[in-house]
């Protein structure tokens, strides 16, 4: 228990002390929200879909949670390079505890980051349907964080150096975001794109956020919830398994 807590705390402390990183990480969602939200707003409105800012805000919140959680897992790569990983690998603590502490730390950080983006969207003019929806939105944020922290851990356990990191960024993380329906509605898509978005776990997270926050859902909240829970269990299991197999 103590080990779980101290490793969770470590993640949190690392995050809270990196002030410049916190500010820097808000730049990208802010850009999407403002440039796309206001830039594409008129076109979106004319096509009869309502306010684009309302539509894209849950997408941007989900984006922040996705990036933060997946990078917390891939952060294992840094632990490996700076050596701290070895310290945890030889400790008389079950590997499952180590990986859970780290993952829960990443999830917590992702939720804080997500909350910051929620605040930013509110300032920009986003208005959720009701205040009662907010706790449910947090539940979806937590699920997104769990799914991708697990995936990040699985990748981080296998990755050996920085070159691999770029590959993951361009061929996994960015596609997960762009093909998730964070930026466009999932209705009436061309067949192939439709199939891809349906296979993207983030689609269900964003859809859940949108469903709770603005009452607009493509798959339905029950399906969103069920899919996310199943995938979270799967990625966390695979992540923990691969972590337990790390050699140094």
């Amino acid at each position, binding site marked *: 228990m103590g080990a779980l807590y101290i490793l969770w705390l*470590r993640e949190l402390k690392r995050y809270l002390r990196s002030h410049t990183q916190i500010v820097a990480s808000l730049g990208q969602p802010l850009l999407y929200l403002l440039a796309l939200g206001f830039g594409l707003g008129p076109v979106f409105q004319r096509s009869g879909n309502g306010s684009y800012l309302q539509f894209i805000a849950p997408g941007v919140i989900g984006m922040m949670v996705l990036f933060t959680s997946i990078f917390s897992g891939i952060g294992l790569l840094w632990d490996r*390079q*700076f*050596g*701290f990983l*070895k310290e945890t690998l030889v400790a*008389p603590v079950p590997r499952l505890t180590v990986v859970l502490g780290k993952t829960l730390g990443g999830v917590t950080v992702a939720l804080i980051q997500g909350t910051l983006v929620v605040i930013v969207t509110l300032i920009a003019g986003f208005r959720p349907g009701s205040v009662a929806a907010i706790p449910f939105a947090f539940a979806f944020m937590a699920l997104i964080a769990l799914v991708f922290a697990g995936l990040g851990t699985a990748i981080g356990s296998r990755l050996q*150096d920085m070159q691999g990191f770029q590959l993951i960024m361009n061929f996994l993380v960015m596609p997960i975001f762009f093909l998730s329906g964070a930026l466009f509605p999932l209705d009436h898509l061309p067949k192939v794109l439709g199939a891809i978005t349906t296979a993207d776990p983030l689609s269900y997270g964003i859809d859940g956020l949108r469903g709770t926050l603005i009452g607009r859902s493509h798959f339905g909240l029950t399906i969103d919830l069920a899919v996310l829970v199943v995938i979270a269990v799967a990625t966390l299991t695979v992540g923990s398994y691969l972590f337990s197999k790390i*050699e*140094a």
Partner: protein
Amino acid sequence: MIRVQSLVKKFGDFTAVQDISFEVQQGEIFAFLGPNGAGKTTTIKMLTTLLKPTSGTVTLDGLDPQREQHEARRRFGIVFQDPSLEWELTAAENMEIHGVLYHVPRKLRHERTEQLLKLFELWERRNEPVKRFSGGMKRRLEIARGFLHTPKILFLDEPTLGLDPQSRNQLWNHVRHVNETEEVTVFLTTHYMDEADRVAHRIAIIDHGKIVAQGTPAELKEQTGTDSLEGAFLALTGSSIRDEAAGSADQMRQFVKMWRK
């Protein structure tokens, strides 16, 4: 306490450790010496559950470090050759994490942290993040951390690398102290022959993945007809210089240094 039989580790075509066998008795200080790239660190990694041997058996206090990983990890402590600190956190926080991971009770943890940080002259700077420490200070912190809990077996992989003579002296005094008072078995590697000569009860010399000689410092000198351990070492391993390839971790650290400037 440690028993190694016909241990082999291959990385692809390269054989890092070729069929080595040795034993370390309880309460012994055992030095494992060899030129760069001889297979010392690879052997330590296999002994400490970090690497799976290609073949051969390892027993730590009667346990197999591969099959009984968790139990084996409760038996030993290690100071790594490479850095293994959390750079973003302070010295005191690094000690705290280690203490918690090794189940040192809170009160004892705080007492020992104070005592060790004072011993290695880091107490004044305990609340500074490790990233602001000099190389020597980081090294001292790694060593202080290694002594926070009292394991049955202590592995020290080139612990004195980058330390000044004062800190080295402190380190070896402390190693002898825990060895004598708490019967900790010590397995160490070093490039400084005088240190091995001074502290080790027994020595094994490894070269190109094979053990070329074993015995007490006196026996090794006698065997090679030399009057110092350094002489014996050179007689056994030759005088050509070895280079290790820089691993990705080293490359990354250089990259990070470039950015921090």
